[in-house]
């Protein structure tokens, strides 16, 4: 992993297996659906972070507030010096989202398990249903870091600008507008289908290999640069609710070292429902216009 721009943020399953129970390391399983993952079995000493409850404001549509972040860290016995090691269900999407959100709040040492939960089980490593308990810690309120997150007005402002790039990491069916959301996710649907004008479609999974580990750095560089997603541009990633795009944000920021990458977590479930924003849909007439 040494060829990556920031190899220290990615750890192997072997690395983790040698540090189970290390008091300076807090292992966190970040799940969208804990009943189908953490509760059935998890890495020994891993604590649960329930994405819907812990990483989101449960009333407003927003990521966790600074106060929620502090409470979460304190409940998990985490101090600013603790090494956080994240993995989770759904191919590490929600772990990557938590990585991004914790980065916004400035936690210094966050790492993602390469291959995540799937690789851990594939290697037949130990799992448990035991839920660990930690003594509460004190975590001083941090300042949020600007620039890692993009909002709808900011995306609208960059449309048509050659010094910016938009990466739509959804499936080709979502990008083309054939679907806006699978039927089982009724609250993630949109009034319009298609994509943000000028976006390139590079599905998130193109960054990983068969075993869910990330591709080598030269392959990743080729994947993005061949589509015009280059480090001299300011890049915005998006998907439907911002979790798959967190995975790609991680690749561009941490593995390839792009200096200006923001995740638009409002994503298609916001853009596709917004009034008056332009939408590109192959085969359909142009919708709206790109602001000057």
């Amino acid at each position, binding site marked *: 992993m040494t060829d990556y721009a920031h190899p220290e943020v990615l750890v192997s399953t072997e690395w983790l297996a040698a540090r189970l129970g290390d008091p300076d390391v807090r292992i966190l399983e970040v799940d969208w*659906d804990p009943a*189908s*993952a953490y509760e*059935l*079995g998890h890495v020994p000493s891993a604590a649960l972070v329930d994405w819907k409850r812990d990483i989101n404001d449960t009333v407003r549509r927003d990521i966790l507030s600074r106060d929620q972040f502090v409470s979460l860290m304190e409940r998990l016995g985490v101090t600013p010096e603790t090494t956080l090691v994240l993995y989770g269900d*759904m191919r590490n999407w929600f772990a990557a989202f938590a990585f991004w959100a914790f980065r916004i709040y400035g936690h210094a040492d966050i790492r993602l398990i390469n291959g995540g939960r799937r690789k851990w089980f594939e290697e037949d490593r130990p799992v448990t249903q035991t839920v660990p308990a930690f003594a509460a810690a004190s975590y001083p309120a941090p300042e949020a870091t600007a620039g890692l997150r993009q909002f709808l007005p900011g995306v609208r402002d960059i449309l048509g600008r050659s010094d910016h790039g938009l990466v739509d990491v959804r499936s080709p069916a979502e990008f083309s507008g054939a679907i806006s959301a699978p039927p089982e996710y009724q609250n993630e649907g949109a009034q319009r289908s298609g994509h943000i004008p000028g976006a390139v479609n590079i599905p998130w999974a193109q960054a990983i290999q068969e075993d869910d580990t990330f591709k080598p750095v030269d392959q990743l560089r080729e994947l993005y640069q061949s589509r015009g997603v280059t480090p001299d541009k300011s890049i915005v990633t998006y998907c439907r609710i911002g979790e798959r795009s967190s995975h790609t944000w991680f690749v561009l920021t941490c593995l390839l070292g792009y200096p200006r990458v923001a995740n638009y977590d409002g994503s298609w479930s916001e853009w596709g429902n917004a009034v008056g924003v332009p939408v590109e849909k192959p085969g359909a007439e142009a919708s709206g216009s790109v602001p000057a």
Partner: protein
Amino acid sequence: MEPSQLDLATAEEECGDSAMGRVRRAYGNLAPGQRLEVVTGVAEHLFGIRAWSRRVGGEVLEERREGARTRLILRRPAPSAS
């Protein structure tokens, strides 16, 4: 009666339901005594299906390795006579 079938190979590409979510949904649609055949090549899924079946009292009737994939047959038990 032929079992219902579920192939988990394409479970997550579009950020749809998780693999285990699909199993739970399909199992929930079974009538008592009916079977569900699940095919997967992912160890995480196999672990989850076994653990979840134990939790809800489901029966794993058969587990057969076929190359890189495994076929499991689950049965929703009939309610016991009281």
